[in-house]
């Protein structure tokens, strides 16, 4: 196990220790243990055990295991709580930290550890035997209160659940959608669906979405019966569940927003239960019918309120009958009060809701555009102050403008960061897609991804989802061979699909690499000639990668038969169009029987970047600042030539770097005849350095990126445009594109 992973876990562990300590100290001071405390401590122990085991903390993980079990006992009310228990947990967690540090430093005294572990077990056993009668008081107090103190801790947890909740919801919907297309439902499908619903129910309980979880419970029961083959799962049931899940989403939404109407909810759950009842009766299974009969009795009962907001979970009721009766009475009354004046009591849910809000992307975009305008206005102001400074001394004005500049910059970064999300959320969608396709196509493919922490613009991510899915589906369908074919080719029977994202020189580069059959470029070429996309003469001068690019031509498909996965010839052209509209481009490298790599190059953001104004002939262009490695004014002996007099190489220290004359590229007249009078900007693309010849550097400028596609189209060598301080349009150099084009030209 790698050291960095251990260090990473150590950081996490220390955080958890701190949180455990502060929780325990608060508990000791208050003298009571709330449900929240217990659940949260249990989760901490659980996380510690799981992660430590994964990174190789064997002994520590063993020790924590006992604590976890003990917490679980408390949680499920098998173990009563008293002061001794609290004290014990505090002592044990101290010991736990010592063991952790020793094991981390590799100097754990193992015989001593075994003594400690034995003592721990004995202590736990002793505590279990203590009579519970004296402890009723503490328990009672804890049952009645949802302590304010515990709220803060739990808010954090709840936010974690939201993500999980959404994922599970998506998983269920995806599964049901898939089910719609299946002819028969195998065990695995039903088990998976059941597991998703079951987990979602659990998650929703943590989020205190009790009504929603109640609703799910009925669906879960139905799936459980299907799983146990007590009833036959049919397409009709699948279809009904799609509607029911949509319904449940609404319930969850309104419950999260605290505006769930109790009557509507009751109607909905009644309807659901009636429907499910009907399904089960139709399946002629009496056992299931009774089960639901009981359930609806509960609903008709006035005690239904017990399952509602802010009521203690029923597991507490088992504690002692005396307490339970009292508590039940009180909480029922309290809960009723809750519904009439819902704002009086602090609700965890409300607090969780206030720590994050959902905002429409259009609002953020609007904000973004306004900030963009502000940046432009600021540039205009700067420009004007320069004009002014020729007339009067305006030192004070410049200083103040610099403050504004800094503040606008910070504002801009803040607004930008709202839109950034990690690639992880893109990757998440694919394992399932790949798994499903593997089954369908009888292929074996391992999915690997890298760069899940690279952040990209949310808007960009949305535009990227479809192209990526298309490319993956295509690779799965056409790229990978079946295991048998792969064995024949002496390849590993399971293929590997890898996605990696890196941020390099002002671009986001996403590579989708498969080790499948590669693209049959001649077949693609043939189809392209047939469809008239290219002529035969064209095809003669194209290399393999260029031919592979033809798969992006509209209406081209190499699939001889159309399947529902791919092969209709729509899609790959959409892929390219989508990526172009994001200001990026796509490249293919393919080798027969070795595999195919799709490389998507995107601008870092859709919005704002720092640029350096460079003079090329009579025009001023903008070079993205992060592309510049260094800039030099070359001396005569630094310029070397090989063969052709027109092509130069820069000798910089020990490196030989090709020079591109940007004037030539943009058909402009250079200002200086000799290269020594001009400037060279050294930049790096894909590990290769390139020097760009410009006439002069001007000032740095922060620019708002505006797409050229919107009213025009992509121009060679230009990635986008911007509006300058004087109101004119500035053009942003697309260095990568310039280098690509030059490279092609020099090879031909």
């Amino acid at each position, binding site marked *: 196990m790698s050291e960095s992973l251990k260090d990473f876990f150590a950081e996490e562990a220390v955080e958890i220790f701190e949180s455990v300590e502060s929780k325990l100290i608060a508990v000791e001071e208050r003298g009571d243990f709330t449900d929240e405390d217990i659940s949260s401590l249990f989760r901490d122990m659980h996380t510690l055990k799981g992660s430590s085991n994964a990174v190789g903390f064997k002994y520590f993980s063993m020790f924590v295991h006992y604590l976890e079990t003990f917490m679980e006992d408390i949680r499920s009310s098998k173990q009563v709580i008293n002061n001794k228990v609290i004290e014990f947990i505090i002592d044990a967690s101290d010991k736990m930290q010592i063991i952790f540090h020793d094991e981390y430093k590799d100097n754990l005294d193992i015989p001593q550890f075994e003594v400690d572990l034995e003592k721990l077990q004995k202590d736990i056993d002793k505590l279990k035997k203590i009579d519970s009668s004296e402890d009723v008081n503490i328990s009672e107090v804890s049952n009645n209160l949802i302590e304010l103190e515990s709220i803060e801790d739990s808010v954090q947890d709840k936010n974690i659940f939201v993500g999980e909740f959404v994922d599970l919801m998506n998983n269920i919907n995806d599964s049901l959608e898939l089910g719609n297309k299946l002819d028969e439902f195998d065990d695995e499908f039903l088990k998976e669906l059941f597991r998703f619903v079951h987990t979602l129910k659990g998650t929703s309980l943590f989020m205190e979405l009790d009504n929603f979880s109640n609703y799910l419970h009925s669906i879960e029961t139905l799936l459980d019966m299907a799983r146990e083959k007590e009833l036959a799962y049919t397409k009709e049931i699948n279809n009904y569940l799609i509607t029911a899940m949509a319904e449940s989403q609404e319930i969850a939404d309104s419950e999260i927003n605290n505006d769930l109407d109790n009557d509507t909810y009751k109607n909905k759950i009644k309807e659901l239960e009636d429907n499910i009842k009907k399904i089960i009766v139709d399946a002629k299974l009496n056992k299931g019918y009774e089960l639901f009969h009981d359930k609806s009795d509960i609903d008709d009962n006035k005690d239904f309120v017990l399952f509602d907001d802010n009521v203690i979970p029923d597991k507490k009721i088992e504690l002692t009958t005396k307490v339970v009766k009292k508590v039940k009475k009180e909480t029922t009354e309290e809960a009723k009060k809750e519904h009439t004046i819902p704002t009086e009591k602090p609700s965890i849910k409300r607090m969780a809701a206030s720590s994050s809000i959902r905002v429409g992307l259009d609002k953020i975009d609007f904000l973004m555009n306004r900030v963009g305008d502000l940046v432009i206005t600021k540039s205009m102001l700067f420009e004007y102050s320069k004009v002014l400074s020729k007339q009067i001394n305006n030192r004070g004005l410049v200083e103040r403008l610099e403050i504004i500049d800094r503040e606008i910059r910070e504002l801009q970064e803040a607004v930008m960061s709202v839109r950034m999300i990690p690639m992880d959320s893109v990757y998440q969608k694919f394992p399932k897609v790949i798994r499903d396709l593997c089954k369908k196509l009888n292929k074996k493919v391992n999915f690997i991804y890298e760069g899940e922490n690279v952040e990209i613009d949310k808007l960009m991510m949305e535009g990227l989802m479809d192209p990526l899915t298309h490319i993956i589906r295509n690779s799965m369908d056409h790229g990978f061979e079946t295991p048998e074919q792969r064995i024949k080719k002496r390849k590993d029977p399971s293929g590997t699909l890898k996605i990696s994202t890196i941020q390099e020189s002002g671009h986001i580069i996403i590579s989708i690499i498969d080790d499948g059959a590669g693209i049959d470029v001649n077949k693609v070429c043939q189809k392209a000639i047939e469809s008239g996309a290219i002529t035969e003469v064209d095809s003669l001068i194209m290399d393999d990668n260029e031919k592979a690019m033809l798969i992006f031509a509209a209406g081209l498909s190499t699939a001889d038969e159309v399947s529902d996965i791919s092969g209709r010839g729509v899609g790959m052209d959409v892929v390219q169009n989508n990526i172009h509209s994001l200001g990026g481009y796509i490249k293919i490298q393919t080798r027969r029987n070795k595999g195919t790599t799709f490389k998507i190059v995107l601008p870092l953001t859709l919005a704002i970047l720092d640029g350096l104004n460079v003079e090329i002939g009579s025009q001023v262009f903008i070079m993205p600042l992060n592309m510049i490695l260094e800039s030099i004014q070359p001396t005569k002996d630094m310029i070397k030539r090989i063969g052709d007099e027109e092509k130069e190489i820069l000798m910089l220290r020990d490196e030989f770097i090709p020079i591109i004359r940007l004037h030539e590229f943009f058909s402009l007249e250079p200002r200086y005849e000799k290269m020594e009078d001009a400037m060279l900007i050294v930049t790096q693309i894909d590990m290769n350095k390139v020097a760009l010849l410009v006439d002069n550097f001007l000032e740095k400028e922060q620019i708002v990126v505006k797409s050229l596609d*919107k*009213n025009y189209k992509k121009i060679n*060598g230009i990635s986008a445009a911007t509006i300058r301080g004087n109101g004119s349009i500035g053009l942003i150099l697309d260095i990568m594109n310039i280098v690509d084009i030059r490279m092609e030209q020099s090879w031909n």
Partner: protein
Amino acid sequence: MELIIFEFLNATYAIELSKTKVILVYKNTMITPVAIEKPWILGFTNLRGEVTPIVDLRIKFSKIKPEYYEDTVIIVVKTEENKLIGVVIDKIKETKEVDIDDLSITPDMSLGMDPKYIQGLKKDGKDMISILDIDSILNIEELTGD
């Protein structure tokens, strides 16, 4: 159909008024040139925050070097591709309501430009007005192709 009628290459042309968005005075417009594009793509201007290409179709349709005067204007058109494109013309004459059913058939010979660019012809006193099919002229592929 209301038309905006203008002079262009020593003849009278028209565009549907509803397709035009703004009219700019050429000499007051800052245009950033892009030399590597087709010669009739003059460059880009900032139209209320939008990066708008400006084209001089006189260069595309004629070999005579165009001249720019005080009253040379740019008609900014919203095309069916939803793009804003500015077109340089010599002089705006008037706007006029025209019955669209009343158009004469365009002959397919003796035309100085591809007949697909002409929507129809209309007699106006001694003059002939050629109503341009501006969407087809300003189609990006068409405009930037050879």
